[in-house]
């Protein structure tokens, strides 16, 4: 959070089960209400219509689950980060729970700008006439051998074609069943991002001759990383506030 004399905080939370069907906006409202129920001293923007200082990270697609969502907000008094999760969790919907929190440095870059890579487990099914998991594996192998993988995307309301190959950092196949598999992948968010749907579209662009037609089943966001100066950091570790308790004692 930027330019502040309050107490910025970053929390990690998950989104699991039926509640994965609520939208990003719905999620923001749920947190705002949970903050009010927990009577957290939320800082507000100065302005004609004051808004709470809350900064969400990368939006999770509706229907996807996550073990690694992040949220920054700012309080007017020192919260004591330890009890924060429990206070908020009381009032959050079932399936959303805070799993970690950290006092954030002043002027820490926002989640939107700093997250570079995201990990997903994407369960895919083979919906071809003669489904086999071997075909999924073959499609994956062929796709990764390509240097260009063009898929249709919508950018700013326009239909475009985009090469997503550079954003596919790593994809491996695990937990294979007769006609489905979990793809564990790392997708880059910068400079161009890719989403699990793009991965599936990319696989389908090479899959047809192999006898594979992939459909998306369960998607779980497992990690978000901030890569900075050669290090790969979990967002809670990236920009912690340095502890100077003496300075505040007076």
């Amino acid at each position, binding site marked *: 959070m930027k330019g502040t004399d309050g107490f910025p905080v970053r929390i990690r939370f998950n989104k699991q089960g*039926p*509640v994965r*069907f*609520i*939208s990003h*906006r*719905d999620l923001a*409202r*749920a947190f*705002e*209400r*949970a*903050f*009010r*129920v927990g*009577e957290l001293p*939320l800082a*507000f923007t100065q302005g*004609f*219509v*004051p808004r709470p200082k809350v900064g969400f990270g990368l939006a999770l697609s*509706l*229907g996807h689950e996550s073990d690694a969502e992040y949220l920054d907000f700012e309080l007017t008094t020192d919260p004591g980060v330890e009890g924060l999760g429990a206070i908020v969790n009381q*009032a959050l*919907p*079932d*399936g959303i729970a805070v799993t970690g929190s950290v006092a954030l440095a002043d002027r820490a870059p926002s989640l939107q700008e700093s997250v570079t890579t995201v990990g997903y487990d994407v369960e895919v099914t083979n919906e071809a006439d003669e489904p086999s998991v071997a075909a999924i594996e073959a499609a994956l192998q062929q796709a990764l051998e390509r240097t260009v993988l063009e898929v249709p995307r919508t950018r700013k309301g326009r239909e475009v074609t985009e090469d997503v190959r550079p954003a596919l950092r790593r994809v491996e196949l695990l937990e294979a069943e007769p006609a489905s598999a979990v793809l564990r992948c790392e997708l880059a968010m910068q400079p161009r991002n890719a989403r699990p749907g793009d991965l599936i579209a990319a696989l389908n662009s090479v899959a047809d001759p192999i006898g594979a037609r992939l459909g998306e089943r369960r998607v779980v966001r497992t990690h978000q990383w901030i890569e900075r100066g050669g290090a790969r950091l979990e967002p809670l570790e990236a920009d912690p506030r340095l502890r100077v308790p003496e300075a505040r004692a007076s």
Partner: protein
Amino acid sequence: MSSLWPRIEPLLARVEKPARYIGMERGSLRPEHRPGQVAWLLLYPDTYEVGLPNQGLQILYEILNERDDAVAERSYAPWSDLEAELRGAGVPLFSVDTHRAASDFDVLAFNLSAELVATNLLNCIDLAGSPVRSGDRAPTDPLVIAGGHCTFNPEPYADFVDAFVIGDGEEPVGEITEVIGAWKRGGRATREAVLHDLATIPGVYVPSMYDVAYDGPRIVAVEPRYPDVPARVEKRTVADLAEWPYPKRQLVPLTEVVHDRLNVEIFRGCTRGCRFCQAGMITRPVRERPADQVRTMVEDGLARTGYDEVALTSLSSADFSGIDGLVGDLVNEQSGCGNVGLSLPSLRVDAFTVGLAAEIQKVKRTGLTFAPEAGTWRLRQVINKMITEEDLYAAVEGAYSQGWRRVKLYFLSGLPTEMDEDTLGIAELARNVVKIGKRHTKQATCTASIGGFVPKPHTPFQWFGQNGVDEMRRKVSMLRDATRKTSVQLRWHDPEASYAEGIVSRGDRRVGHAIEHVWRSGGTFQEWSEHFSLDLWLDGMAAAGLDPDWYVTRHREESEILPWDHIAAGLHRDFLWQDWKAALAEYGLPDCRWTPCYDCGVCTGYAIEHVVASPVAPAGGSQGTGQDLSRGGWAPVALAEKRPS
């Protein structure tokens, strides 16, 4: 008896706004179903966004779940995309609380608050896996019950609904639970037996217990089939709102809905006596909630829900005794804990109201809404909405001078005795409002919103022939011409939708065939303009052999048996007829909560009284609040001390 969730979940990935179907709201329950209990599925036959905030449904949800012998869950009409998925996958309608099949419940209880949801009622029954017609259901099928304002004329729904609850539902739901519980314990013998027992509960109307006889198009008799079934079903009324501090745990939805805020009902009933207003006629008398209880409900509700807005709801919130003090207290208390907004829906038109609004909206003064309802003083006397031009202009002056930029005015058109000069009076009022506004801000605008008047049962206008589609279109286009090139923005309700509402509003049992025809032709979500089709309704009426104009545009006679005459809202029929005559004579009638009783029949008939903390009307108000009304119009109104005969 298990959850359908594993079958529903894959479908939700393919539909719009799946959050509507997951439940899990704060305040919701996931009740265990035990064998001896009566299981209620409370259904709102429109989308989740419209139905979730419905306070009546939430109140009954809590009251039933507090009982040992009952369990209640909720459901809403699935949007057409999910409906197609459900039908395709053979999955029935389900509850949002535990995703149980609707057919696992003993009762499907519908809230009917708008006429055109009738076809969604049928669709929900069908999606639940039951025959839509009551007569085709087996003892194993759920009982279909309905309540809500539309059930004051239950006849159009009579073929589909087993039993109606007329009036406040808080008390009858318990009595119904006991009757159904006993029937279940007795082995669910026949439907006839339980329906007969239900028909003996006060306020419960079981249409199959009555025979309707016709002579040509007219009804000649409605006779109960058993001696212990009442010839007239009297509405139920909760005497003291203080005993019913519900909802105690208002539901906080996980996705956006209408009226997404804490709602606290500050009083029920209204005796302003607006003659077009069914709500005001059927919910008498006025029953205020004690101010201390309101304060507690607001405080507890905000703390529990995390809402940042609370609405003090009623049919005319500025009429609550000591409203200024209450609002002052709430604004001061809430300003401490940060950014809680207060709203008062349904405000009167006067300077007092603007003062209240100023107290509430200290910062964000964008729009303010008033409802003069008619364009001329003469016509406002006819409808007994006694707002003088002075009152309106003073209110508007107050609003623009204190920083509001947009004023919205609600009007009805197609009212009894309405002449073109009355219709054009709407444009004149709106233009004058803009003129006043421009003196204060260049940005001043005024929106005039025109609803086509649909006469409602149990009102003095129940005998009036509604304007047809062409006449309403003519009036709308006249108003469009009169507001062209002004800062007045005109909005209007679709005249075709008003006409279809008119079919159901005062329909009789035979109209049920038309409703079924519309539903069978795919006509669901008729409240939604993108789904509404008047042709479906006209086809339906034709298929039923009925003349729609006979139901909609025909004036009724005093001697005519109206389809809802065997349902009583407590109002004497002769009071309504006299009030209709008074309307035609342009006579106003004062508000009886502060002036002597004119015996409409409700308090005397039911031995109940107004519960009003202040014996005098609020200061500075119009509409029969003790102000000298003669100064406002060129044709001074004579308030009727006695009803004209």
